[in-house]
């Protein structure tokens, strides 16, 4: 299927099944839009009528566009067929390999962010910290179940992982020792609210962490409204200098300043630009995950405004980039030529199969967003995955398992979306989360538009 849209003055066609992108003029845009539904003679008539004041639009020109379209069809770059549906069936018999763990090193937090999906860090359970023994067993489990995968990812997550920094350090040392023995490469990452960042942590993180994710929601009033201490005080002033220093010391290593936007700041582009104005260059901003009953939850009515914000952000990024003041935005970082292969695009994020979450006591869940829901308990790091039914269900949770995805132009961009969002929204991991899908489609449109603008800057 194709998707035709206009953005920032560009007419863009995305061929959903091949991933091809075409930047076209308005005449070709109209013809391609009608191509499948309307007979050729009728299209010619309609185009000649619409552009009757344009001397450059005549029958010969229109026929030339038809010839170009036919050539692109031949090249499988336009109106291409979906040839990947059958590949997804093989996922059932695919060997189960674990390559990434989200280690819940602390089910406790020194903030009490009002929108926290982890229930103030405790995941609706008791406050607890992971012991070194459990963490060590988790790394052993990962190595033992990783097959021939060399790169193994471990995210120190919480709650707030720095509440258990001593164990983080010991686990990294253990991982470094084990990677040599087993010919693996550990990529550690840390997601932190920044409260406990100090010189020692910064030096350690900059040495050992391939990426650090620093939580900042943008403007002070936005951040302080929801990211508060247990006493209700905003955390912006406390963390900002620490984030600045961490990033400065990090040199060319990856980091993300990552925010969450809610119903309270549907003008979130201002928050992203605030981050950029503070000097941060690697930015991310995610829609809040929340039950619809919460006042800060995003609503269907918010979607059109949020889409405008994504567009505004994309246009501003192009402008700033031209001035040498560019920054990256996580969802717009697509590489059309060298991006992920089709297998990755079909199989999605790997939840419940390649990617698992580990609680402080060593329980295994499909991902961090299922932690605390015992229906999804898969086993533990000592005995491995014992509830293989859950794993098998997630192995088959891919873009072709979702009816709604089949006709969506963006299905090879999102891999079927977030299973946790689907579950929370529809009660089924193979369902869809409409707001999430609408926003994702818009982000894809904007990311592609930026690529078109890079290719044709003078347009």
């Amino acid at each position, binding site marked *: 299927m194709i998707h035709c849209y206009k953005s920032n003055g560009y007419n863009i066609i995305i061929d959903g099944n*091949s991933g*091809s*992108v075409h*930047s*076209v*003029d308005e*005449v*070709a845009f109209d013809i391609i839009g009608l191509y499948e539904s309307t007979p050729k003679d009728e299209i010619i008539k309609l185009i000649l009528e619409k552009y009757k004041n344009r001397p450059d639009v005549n029958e010969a020109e229109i026929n030339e*566009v038809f010839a*170009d379209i036919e050539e*692109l069809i031949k090249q*499988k770059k336009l109106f291409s067929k979906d*040839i*990947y549906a059958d590949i997804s069936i093989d996922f059932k018999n695919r060997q189960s*390999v674990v*390559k*990434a763990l*989200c280690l819940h090193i602390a089910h406790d937090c020194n903030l009490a962010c009002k929108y926290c999906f982890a229930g103030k860090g405790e995941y609706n359970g008791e406050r607890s910290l992971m012991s070194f023994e459990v963490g060590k067993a988790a790394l052993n489990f990962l190595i033992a179940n990783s097959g021939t995968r060399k*790169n193994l*990812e471990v995210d120190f997550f919480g709650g707030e992982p720095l509440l258990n920094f001593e164990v983080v350090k010991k686990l990294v040392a253990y991982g470094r020792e084990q990677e040599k023995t087993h010919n693996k490469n550990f990529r550690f*990452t840390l997601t932190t609210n920044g409260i406990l960042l100090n010189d020692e942590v910064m030096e350690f993180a900059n040495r050992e962490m391939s*990426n650090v*994710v620093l939580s900042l929601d943008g403007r002070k009033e936005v951040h302080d409204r929801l990211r508060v201490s247990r006493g209700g005080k905003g955390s912006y002033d406390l963390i900002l200098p620490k984030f600045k220093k961490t990033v400065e010391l990090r040199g060319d290593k990856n980091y*993300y300043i*990552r925010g*969450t936007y809610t119903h309270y700041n549907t003008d979130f582009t201002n928050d992203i630009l605030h981050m950029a104005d503070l000097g941060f260059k690697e930015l*991310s901003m*995610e*829609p809040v*995950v929340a039950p619809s009953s919460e006042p800060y939850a995003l609503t269907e009515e918010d979607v059109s405004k949020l889409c405008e914000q994504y567009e505004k952000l994309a246009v501003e990024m192009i402008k700033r980039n031209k001035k040498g003041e560019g920054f990256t935005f*996580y*969802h717009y970082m*697509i*590489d*059309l*030529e*060298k*991006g*992920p*292969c*089709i*297998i*990755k*695009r079909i199989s999605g*994020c*790997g939840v419940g199969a390649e*990617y698992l979450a580990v609680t402080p006591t060593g329980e295994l869940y499909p991902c*961090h967003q299922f932690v605390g829901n015992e229906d999804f308990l898969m086993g533990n790091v000592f005995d491995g995955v014992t509830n293989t039914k859950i794993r098998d269900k997630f192995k088959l949770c891919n873009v072709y398992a979702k009816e709604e995805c089949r006709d969506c132009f963006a299905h*090879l*961009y*999102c*891999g079927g*979306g*977030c*299973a946790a*969002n689907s579950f929370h929204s529809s009660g089924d991991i193979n369902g869809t989360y409409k707001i*999430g899908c609408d926003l*994702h489609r818009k982000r894809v449109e904007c*990311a592609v538009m930026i690529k*078109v603008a890079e290719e044709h800057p003078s347009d």
Partner: protein
Amino acid sequence: MKRIRTLETKDLEKSAKKGGCGECQTSCQSASKTSCSIVNQQCEQNNKKKK
């Protein structure tokens, strides 16, 4: 083509034959954690070539 400009994109059909090494990053290990984004992940094979 006068009115249609096609951007260079990855040949997904070709990648079906060679792809799937599984060495690439899991999307939620980076900046996401609450949504899913696949297409912005890097292909590890390209990183290898760069080295």
